[in-house]
């Protein structure tokens, strides 16, 4: 616990690393930081155009909400494998708490995510204005920070775990891409959660073990007013991210002492 609190002392470093992370991503490009907004804008536009052209019957707003949440998750998990291993000289020569690495990686991605949420809100308002889509923004909107915290806890937990794994097992990096592909289809992004509930039967409980299920569902509730299922098991699964955060960080703190030996 002390070691977790100690990290507050390193806020300057975390801020520095987050800024460095963001700055370097767009270094040298003409539009620079604007890309964090332009990217999701064009993504939404392209989905919009092609779903129309191809007449695919997918609810665009709920697809976009799912995809943005998924992107935050994917960015964190794919960045996490290199969060430690990309910094051998820092690991071998400095002594600050290693949790700084996954944490600053997650925070940098969080900032990108928040900016893409602004684009999402703009897009959704335009969409409802011009296409008669009714969005019931209401009480659930005040839950938004809570949902973001939930997902951030989740990616930090997984991020710390996989960052650690890649130090000891270089294969983690390659397993990750396969894992993420399967995970994508196990998460209600291309399809509504209701569909799984109808067809999966008893396996639905198992399906709820995927912590991204409550995350995506809650975002849809917040932005689109699509209510989550009322099963108590669903609310229980909302606690999963915190469990994963605890487990991931505990594992990380146990292993961090020996990172330098492995590099």
């Amino acid at each position, binding site marked *: 616990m002390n070691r977790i609190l100690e990290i507050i002392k390193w806020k300057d470093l975390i801020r520095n690393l987050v800024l460095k992370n963001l700055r370097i991503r767009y270094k040298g490009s003409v539009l620079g930081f604007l890309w964090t907004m332009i990217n999701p804008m064009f993504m939404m536009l392209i989905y919009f155009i092609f779903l129309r052209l191809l007449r695919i019957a997918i609810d665009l707003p709920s697809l976009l909400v799912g995809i943005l949440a998924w992107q935050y998750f994917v960015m964190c998990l794919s960045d996490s494998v290199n969060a430690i291993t990309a910094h051998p*000289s820092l690991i*071998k*020569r400095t002594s600050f708490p290693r949790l700084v690495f996954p944490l600053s990686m997650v925070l940098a991605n969080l900032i990108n995510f928040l900016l893409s949420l602004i684009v999402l809100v703009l897009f959704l308002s335009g969409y409802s204005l011009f296409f008669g889509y009714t969005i019931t923004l209401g009480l659930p909107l005040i839950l938004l920070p809570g949902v973001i915290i939930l997902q951030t806890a989740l990616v930090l937990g997984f991020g710390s775990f996989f960052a650690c794994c890649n130090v000891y097992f270089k294969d983690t990096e390659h397993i990750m891409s396969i894992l993420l592909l399967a995970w994508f289809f196990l998460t209600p992004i291309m399809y509504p959660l209701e569909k799984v509930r109808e067809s999966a039967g008893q396996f639905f409980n198992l399906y709820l073990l995927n912590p991204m299920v409550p995350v995506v569902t809650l975002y849809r509730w917040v932005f689109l007013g699509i209510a989550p299922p009322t099963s108590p098991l669903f609310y229980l699964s909302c606690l999963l991210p915190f469990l994963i955060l605890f487990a991931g960080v505990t594992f990380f703190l146990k292993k961090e002492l020996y990172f*330098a030996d492995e590099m």
Partner: protein
Amino acid sequence: MKTIEAINVSKLFRLRHTGTPTLKSRFVDTIKRRRGSEDFWALRNINFSAEAGETIGVIGPNGCGKTTLLSIIASTMAPTTGRVITRGRLASLLELGAGFHPDLTGRENIFLNGAIMGIPRRTIEEKFDSIVAFSGLDHFIETPIKFYSSGMVVRLGFSVAIEVNPDILLVDEVLAVGDQAFQKKSSRRIQRMKEAGKTLLVASHDMGTIRRFCDRVIHLQNGEIDEQGVPAGVVDNYIQSAQELPDGLGKIAGWGTMEAVIRGVKFRGSGGNGKPAYRTGDDFSVEIEYFAARKIENPVFGYAVHTHDFQLCSGSNTQIDRCPIEAIEGPGLMKLSLESLPLLRGHYLLSLSIHSQDHNINYHRQDYTYPFDVVSSTDRTGIVDATSRWDFRPGGEKGPGSQG
């Protein structure tokens, strides 16, 4: 006050034979019931402490555990057993500018580096000007450091580490950074830190540095403390112990890539056993037995003679003396001769080296490694025997040499 305390510190490394572990290598090792690793104790039961104001040198051959010990004190590595207690702010010069990012400017990197050392942003802001001034890089501070020369990067890293005023400074082989002027400046600065009661821990192969800076020296051998005490005694014993074992690369004094090594040195024309002794005006010659593990093209052999207080008396190499060597491979002999030694009585230190023509690769350097004495029958003082003569002419009578 004790600023560093190491209590029973040991460090076990698991050496893998197959590089980084992958799923496959672990799998194959399990199937074949083979252990993919070997245990290696890099440090065993290290006990020592350092007082405030003390400068401690750590010496020993390559692989003796110097860097591991410093890493554990800097707490970048955890000891396998035992513990290290440090009091006060610690800065390490283990790798200067470890946290530098090439795309960021000098200014941004100063702040980043400070943050890595856990120094509050406010402090860095206050010290910013003196950091830049010390580094001498004020013209380049807004330039991304990827455009810096390697010397400039090191200077910047050194300046940050030293300007934040640490209580404990760990130094690994980097006292010689930057150009001559910067080296002088940093030596003076380190001297001032000593006077201000800071603790310095210096790991080096350069016996000159060790003798000059340190109050106490720890000699590590195979991960254990072989001897600790005053520099003169420990360094001399280390040099001698290193010479006693002419075979086996790890046990030769000096440092370098060890692709070519000086295996043995025989002083010719000096009398008998013990420390070689010469007379002023004697022909001084040294036979160097070398061994090149691979073919090395255009190597250069060099020598230097210093007084016991490290003033350079004379130095040269095969390049300067126009004795080009096409290549060396395997064993061989090189003979160095100085005709009629022009040194006056005193204790001297001979350094030898094998390096590349551009001095970028040091195959083997033995700095201040071979002590020898010079005795002279004359009472002239100084270092150099200038064969002085006097011509006395009272009354202004014209001498034979003058025109008239």
